[in-house]
């Protein structure tokens, strides 16, 4: 069966660390970094990249539109 694997790129300088994407991700991919960006925000990043399916949920809820999503079909 065809499965999807995904990846996101967070524009970390524009991320405000609001955590909304963290909650929106169904597979627990995203966490806030311990370090901060130049604005002082703990930005979002893929802590468990392998779990990303490219569902776009995180990007769709991000108030600052800083997430880009890629998805590729893989055969399981």
């Amino acid at each position, binding site marked *: 069966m065809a499965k999807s*694997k*995904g*990846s*996101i*790129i*967070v524009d*970390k300088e*524009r991320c*405000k*660390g*609001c*955590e*909304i994407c963290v*909650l*929106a991700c169904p597979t627990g991919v995203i966490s806030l*970094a311990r*370090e901060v960006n130049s604005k002082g*925000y703990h*930005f979002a*990043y*893929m802590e468990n*990249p392998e779990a*990303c399916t*490219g*569902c*776009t*949920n995180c*990007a*769709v*809820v*991000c*108030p*600052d*539109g*800083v*997430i*880009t*999503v*890629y*998805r*590729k079909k893989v055969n399981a």
Partner: protein
Amino acid sequence: MVENTGISDIVKDENLVYQKTKVLTDKVMHYCPGCGHGTAHRLIAEVIEEMDIQAGTIGVTPVGCAVLMYNYLDIDMQEAAHGRAPAVATAIKRLMPDKYVFTYQGDGDLAAIGTAETIHACNRGENIAVFFINNGIYGMTGGQMAPTTLSGMKSSTSPYGRDVQMMGNPLKMTELVAQLPGTWYVTRQAVHTPASVRKAKKAIRQAFENQKLKKGLSLVEIVSNCNSGWKMSPVEANKWMVENMFPFYPPGDIKLEGKMVGKE
């Protein structure tokens, strides 16, 4: 150091499924982290891109946190005085009937100081879209009570909670304008979860599409958080919104194609 470059064999142009629309400018939005204004702006921009109506759209910004919306959308925009956006938009639409015209207004702007302009634009059935961001508070000026502030809800001018005996009742403008013959489409949405965002975007698209029909005004309320005004984290604010705002301002369609939902 966290690198944020994604997984290299997936991050390829042919695999791109979501990126920021070009109708949004590159300017970083001034909103507080997690504020629904940003999401609502993006949805409007995405709809404009998808409908390919960048050259055909004129937006009117309010006085409120979204006053600088014109910095973020790459379309022609006018900044209206506090509450007057529906009057401004009326003239734009009357003079350029083939353009898509929308206002974007907060609850103070639309339901307090601009009540007359809102009701009369709705009642005349102006063929415009009104996007109404209801966060139950005056965000921009520092969290004062709005007409929409819930009974018992704290704000900087109702520090012990809204006492409806003394301060009046929260106002459901959306239900109110749905009663008017000039409104064609009235709906209440939210933008706090992926599912709600996708629904809200459909509603926004509908409000733009409706302008082609010339059958009246479309109003999309978006119940939104104001984590600064509510003094909560963004995640807490969204939870509080679901538990407290939604019972009084329930998301859902109120009027479709000129008919009240759930009535004959």
